[in-house]
Each structure stands twice: as C-alpha cells, then as structure tokens.
C-alpha cells in the first residue's frame, strides 16, 4: 500500500496538479487495462507515460504512429537467417512492458487493429509461433481529438479495448506558473527512483481482484448499466464487458484509496473514464460531450441506502 502511495506521490511531483488523471492512469494499470489519453499536444501525455514507466520500474518504448506504419513495424518481422537456414522472428517495439502509442489514430486501420489485437491477447502470433508479451504489459495510446484530417477514427469495437479514456487538460494557474518557472519536467525523470518493481505490480494486480464486492455495490453497478441502456438519448448502453471493466477499475481505485471493499465512491470516481468512450449519443455527438454525459448518468442513479 505504501509503495503505491509513494508511486503516486512521485508521479504528482512530475505531473503537476493532475492527481485525478494520474491516479486513474495508475488504477487502469492495476486493473490490467490499457489507457487512451485524448488530448491536445503539449499537456504532458508523453511525460506521463515516461514517468509511469520510470516510477513503476518498467521498461518502455514509444512508437509514433503514422499513416504508413505497417503492422510488422510494431509487432516484429521474421527474417531469414542465411547461416542457420531458418526464419528468425525479430521482435518489434511492442515487446516491452509499457508501450506509448503516440497518435494512434494516424495509423491505418490495419495497423491499429494489429496493435489492438495484441493488446487484447497479450501475445503476438507470427509464422505459426506464438510469442508472449512481457508481463506486466500496458499500452498508453494517445490521440488528438481536434485533428481530423488524415486520421482514422478508432471504431467503437476498438475503443472498447481500452479500459479507460482520460484527458489531462491544461494545468491551472498556479501549476502552470510552476511549470513555466522550472522548465522541462522530463529533466527530472532520471532522478526519479522506482517505487515498484514489475513483480510487485503483478502482485498488486492480483490483489485488485481480491477487493471485496458487496451485493449492494453490485446492485448499484447494475442500476448504472440499466440507466445507460434505458436512456432515450443513448444509442447504445454499456455492455456486460464494459460492466466488468467498470468493476475492475473501481476495485483498483479502492486499492489505491486503501480500502478492502469497493464503495459507490470508487465506482463514481472511475465511471466517466471507463464509460465515456463507450457511450454514443443518439444524435452523434459522442466524444466531446461524453464526460458530461457520464456525470449525468452518475447523478441519475441513486446510491443504495
């Protein structure tokens, strides 16, 4: 528990004034989910990914997605070795513990889908051989919501592979002043001590599953799912898989809050991040208005007494 708190404290030193999104990012990792950061450039997406890797003691790689990126550029390629007379699989950048997929919506759907499939399966199949990805494996993808030309919007089925979608947003006045005064945050990264190890993270991920789920809480989550399905303004409600994700994320949040049972507070804290990108409004205003819609749903569902 203390290790997690120490990790959070270190992250908050690097990413100033964004403790809620940072906490969500860590919860997403603990819940064995992948993270989509949707934001304009320059608010610290890369820094967050880098800092996460550093603090959690993970090795990480970054892939800048472009329209001519091929699946093999990420997954790896089989090369014929003249000496041994056989094909050798050369692992791509995805074989890392934390992958930062920058501007994931710039790649062609084919490449996107190769990445997302690997994310889901946590393995890569090439030439009939299955290569397992390292554990833990965590993808942080970013996309810029404002740029639309030359991008391929992730379809709903792909968005579903991300447990959470968050955005960092601009810092507030005081924190921005601190940023301006102190210069590049990435310079601080090398001095950052790792608070966790990969094995410790795997242990924490296991303990997330043991966070208690009471009947009252499951009632509450079901009421929320029902609300998303019964609302007139939603084209599609949350799927059972999304419900499972919501519960896992709430469990991770409860763990981060030092609790051994999930409270409705935990569900409310992660709901916008988990549900926002999975809900589509009827008149097509999905993405930008998603988060306020999630708040609407939270406010519409009474907490069990």
């Amino acid at each position, binding site marked *: 528990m203390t290790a997690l708190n120490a990790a959070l404290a270190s992250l908050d030193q690097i990413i100033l004034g964004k403790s809620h999104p940072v906490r969500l990012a860590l919860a997403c990792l603990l819940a064995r989910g992948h993270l989509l950061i949707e934001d304009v450039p320059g608010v610290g997406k890369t820094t967050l990914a880098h800092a996460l890797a550093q603090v959690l003691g993970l090795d990480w790689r970054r892939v800048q997605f472009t329209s001519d990126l091929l699946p093999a550029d990420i997954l790896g390629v089989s090369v014929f070795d003249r000496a041994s007379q056989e094909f050798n699989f050369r692992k791509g950048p995805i074989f890392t513990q934390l992958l930062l997929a920058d501007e994931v919506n710039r790649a062609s759907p084919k490449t996107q889908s190769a990445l997302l499939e690997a994310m889901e399966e946590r393995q890569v199949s090439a030439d009939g051989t299955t290569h397992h990805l390292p554990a833990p494996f965590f993808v942080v993808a970013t996309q810029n919501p404002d740029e639309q030309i030359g991008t391929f919007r992730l379809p709903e089925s792909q968005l579903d592979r991300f447990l959470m979608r968050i955005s960092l947003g601009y810092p507030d006045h005081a924190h921005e002043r601190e940023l301006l005064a102190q210069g590049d945050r990435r310079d601080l990264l090398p001095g950052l001590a790792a608070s966790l190890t990969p094995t410790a993270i795997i242990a924490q991920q296991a303990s997330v599953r043991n966070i208690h789920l009471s009947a009252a809480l499951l009632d509450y989550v079901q009421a929320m799912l029902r609300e998303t399905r019964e609302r*007139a303004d939603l084209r599609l409600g949350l799927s059972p898989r999304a419900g499972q994700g919501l519960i896992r994320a709430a469990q991770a949040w409860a763990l981060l809050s030092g609790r051994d*049972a999930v*409270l*409705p507070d935990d569900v*409310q804290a992660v709901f916008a991040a988990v549900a926002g990108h999975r809900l589509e409004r009827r008149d097509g205003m999905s993405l930008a208005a998603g988060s306020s819609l999630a708040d*609407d749903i939270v406010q519409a569902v009474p907490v069990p*007494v």
Partner: protein
Amino acid sequence: MTQPWLRMPSRWSRTLGAEQIAATAAIAVLLLGVALHATSLPVWTLVAVLGCAVWRFLAVLNVVPLPGTSRTIRVAFLFATTLALLAVLASFRTLNGLAAGTALLSMMGALKLLETRTPRDERVVVGVALFLLLAACLADQSLTRTPFYLLHAWVSCAALALIAQRSSSVTPRVALRLAGRALLAAVPVAIVFFLFFPRVAGQFWALPTGGTATTGLSDEMTPGSIDRLIEHYEPAFRVRFESAVPPPAARYWRGPVLTSFDGYTWRRSRFAQYRDAPIERLGTPVRQRITLEPHHRQWWFALDTVAATPRQDVFLTGDHQLVSLEPVDETVSYTVESHLQTRATEPLSTLGRRLLTALPGSRNPRSRRFAAELRATVTDERAFVSAMLEYFRTQGFQYSLEPPRTSADSVDDFLFDSKLGFCGHFASAFATVMRAGGVPARVVTGYLGGEWNPIGSYLIVRQSDAHAWTEVWLDGAGWTRVDPTGVVEPERLNRGLIDLLPNALSAQTRFLHRSPWLARMLMSWDNVNHWWRESMVEFDFRQQLTLLQKMGLGATGWRGLAMLLAAGFIIWLLWIAYSLRHLMIRSRPDRLAQIWQSFCAHAAPLAGPRLAHETALAFAARVRSARPDLANSALDIAQHYSRLRYGQSAIEPTTSQRALQELDRAVREFAVELTRQPA
C-alpha cells in the same frame, strides 16, 4: 423534407440549451392556451399577451434582459397588474364570469412570463395555460374544437417534462413522445372517470357565460319577428324518435303560447290567470329524445301536446308548454312523450273565455267589423273557422317573406290591403278574427317540420323552421290547432322552407343544398356532432345510472358510484406503485438503512438533504464543510456505515449486529452534539 415542423425543435435543441428550451416551452404553451380563446378575448388582451411572449422569447435568446427584481420593477409589476385588472373591468364591466375571468387569467399569465426565472415559475405559467384550457372546455365543447384541446394538453404535458428534466437528453421531440405516451396511458383512467364520476344534477358546472346573442323564439311576436329567424340556418334542436315517426304535416313543435294581443304584438301572459280545461289524451304517445341547443330563453320544445315534464326544474304550464326555471344556456337533452290528439273533458272557464277573446278596443276596427259580418253568415263556430280559412284561400292571399310594413293596425293592413304575409301575419290575423267573432283563440309559436338526417336517423329542426299558428277553442273538442298558413301554402306543411322560398336562405346555405353530395356530407357531419353532443357532452347522471343498470350494478346510487370510483382510483394507484416497484432499490429499509437515514435526517439542517446519487462519504464531507467542529464524528459514521454496507464484515450477522448498535450509538451522539452551538 417530411414534416419539417417536427424536425425544427430538434434543430433548436442543438442551438438552445436545456434551460432555454424549457423557458420557450412555457411561452409556447401559454400562447396556445390564449389562442384557444382568441375569438372571445378582446384585442388588447391578445396584443398584450403577444407582447409579453415576444419579450420573454427575446430574453431567452439573450437579446434583451428580463425585468429585474429591484423594488422599482416590482412596483411596476404591481402597477401593470392593477392596470390589467382595470382594463378587464372596463372591457367586461365585471370580473365575474367566464369571459372576464379568462381575460384576467391570460393577462396574469403573460405578466408572470416576464418574471419566470426558476422551474417553479415556468410550472406556474404552464398551470395557467392548463387553466385556460379548462376555461375553453367550459366555454365551448363542440367537436371541432376538441382536437385543439387535445393538442394543447399534449404540448402542455411535454412542456412540463422539459421543465422538469432540463437535460440535453430530453429534447422537445423526446418530451412530446413522453407526454404522448403518458396521455395515452391516462386514457383508460379518463374513460373510467367519464363513465363513473358522479355527475352532479343541475347546473353546478355552469358558469354565467355572459352576453351572447340570442337566436330563437322570444315571448312575443310582431308581424316581422318570425321572418327574421328564417335567415338562421343553425339547428334549434335535434330529435330522435323512440317510437313511430310522425308524418311531416304533424310535426308541430310547440313553443311559447301567446295569448295577449295589443293590435300589433302578441305576448305571452306572464301569469296563468285562468285554469285551462283538463284534457283527455288520445292515441298512442310519441316518445322523443330532444337535444336542445342553447338559446338563452326558458322554453323547452316538444312535439304537440306534452304528457309530462321531463325534469323537476321544468314546468308544464296550463297551456302545455315546457318552461324551465333557468334559461337554456347550454345544450340539454330530455325525453318526453307527446300526444297528437287531445280532447277537452270540461268546458273552458268563463274567465278563460273572456281573456282569450279579448281584443284591444281601438285597434283593427275593419277586422272586427269583418269578423262580426262573417260570424253572422254562419251558424256555429266550426263553420266560422272554415269560412275564415275559405276567405284566406279565395281572396288572393300570398305567402311571402317580404311583406310590406304595417301600421299599428297590423291585422287590418294585412287582411284588406297587402294580403301578403308570412306565417306570423296569417296566425295573428286569424286569431284576431276568431276572437272578434267570439271564438277563444291563441297564437302558438314554435317550429314546423324539420330535416330528416337519414344517416343518423334523427330530425334536425332549424331556426329557419320557425313557425306560428293558432289554436281555437271549439266546444266539445277543446283546443284545436288551425294553421292558416297551410291553407294558403299547403306545401309548407310537407316541405321545408328551403324548397318553398329558396331566397329566404343565404347564398351559402343554398349552395350547400344544391349539391346532393355536399348535403350528404353536411348530414354526416351533423350526425357526428349530434353523437358527440348526445353521448359525450350530455352524458349525465341519468345515463350513468342506465349504464350501471346495464352492468348489473343498478342498486348503487350516487354514493355507491362515488365509492366505486374511489375504489377504482385506489386500485389504479396501487397498480402504478406496483409497476414502479423496481425504482425502489430496497423496498423496506433494513436496520442499517434506518440508522443511516436517521443520520441523514439529523445532518440535513446543516448541509441540506442527501442527494439520491450522493455517496455516504461525499455527504459526510459536505457536513464537514458545514460544521468543521463536528467533522470527525460525521466522517466516522459515514465510514462505519460504508464498511457495514459494502465491506466484508457485512457477511457475518453476529458481528454486524454489534456493529449496528455501535453505529446507532454514534448517530445518537452526533445528534446530541448537533444541539450544541458551534464554538
């Protein structure tokens, strides 16, 4: 581009916020409510309401501000309200009654628009609009207006939904769908209420409707009065026969009986000064159900000689007319039995004979002389009647709608000079000559004939069927109807006026009658309308009882009906509660919930009530910010509660029993602590 009017609201909903849409809905509903009264409201009211609505709408669009809440503006509102009150008073000379009340309500609603800031204000405006709808229903219940009433109810309910939800998820279209569904769901309740809500007998619901132009027979007749009625094509009443239909020539609908004559005007004597001779009713009675249109007089009409009064507040006078206590201001339906043949069993009283042969001494000298000479040539009264009718037939009298004006000696002018007249002239002259010849006579006004509606199988009697005839007393027979018009124009008895004197009717009516197809359409429309009146608007207590009897519940009375209705209503509410049970997360709060709710109740005065979606910890945090000195206990209680509700310990009943007691004690201590003032 299908149904662009339906699509428009959703386009607005993208440009206008939920608050703006709610305000716009309130404006629209009020405007619709006022529009229902557009024909009866004074023009200044309409202009004022429209002005306020435009102002409010511009304020919605943020073009102009709303009037503020400063003292000056509040005084200005008071002034405007007083002004509206005075203006209504000036327009209607009263604040009482439906029309004035409607104008006042419209003005108040419009002024209220200018101070709608909260959802509550908007609800008030919608309430005013619904009251306007109620007033419209009281004022006019005709079938043609019913769709507008339904539309208004629909839009009002949708506006209430918009005002209550104020969320971008409830667009006008969603709200309309919601309201439509709710109204459809209310239809069974409405039907049950319609059928079983106890109708209070009498005019309990009726409001004074104020000055309405009167069309119909009055209690006096001058030589031109009936002619003026002929132009009116609207129905006077409709008749459904419950026995054999009498032939056209026998369809004399008796109305006011006029007995006193001043030489020019026949009047109904206000007092029954003589006792009419008792009569014997002959033949089988004709049973009729009559639906009488409002004519703002006290007469009720019926075929020939009525047997008995249909209602307690309607009297059958000595000369066999039905007179009600109240004027007929709204449609009434009644069933009566009439006899086409009667015979007096006793002679006419001396007083009666004297009154009914009385003539003003100085008027119509030529007619009196003529009557005396004619009477001398015949032996008995019957021959005298025949001789007079023969005189009409042979002396070139003509039936005409445009008789020349007469002097005060109207009968003399008609009998000897113009010889041109309408039914009134003939009846008046005949009765005068009869009286001058010593035969008791009276003029009866009413309607003759009527138009048969083959689609609905009923008779429409119109104002244009108005007629006047005479009744003379013949010894041995009693009162005998004599219609001198029938002698001059025998066809009048069998055919409507439209065939005889087409020029009497307006060009529009003639046009409608020329095309059989149009005439058939008219009849169908009249039939639907009549059905609406008879079975919807006029559905009264009597019909309710008939319905109950048909259902085998004949023994229930007024009280039984009320109890039945109340029971039905309770069952309906229970059904609603049952179907909404899933909204209750826990139907009966357990001990833990009771303790927690008592904490929430204790803390509510500090931080306001706990919101439905607010978690225990969030509520405790709110309590903390309100009373920092009580912080820890509130937070402890919330954590303790959360642990018991959501934690693993909730599984073990024995420990949680002890934990519940602890929590209960903590809440009690908190409550005690609350009573201490903050340091």
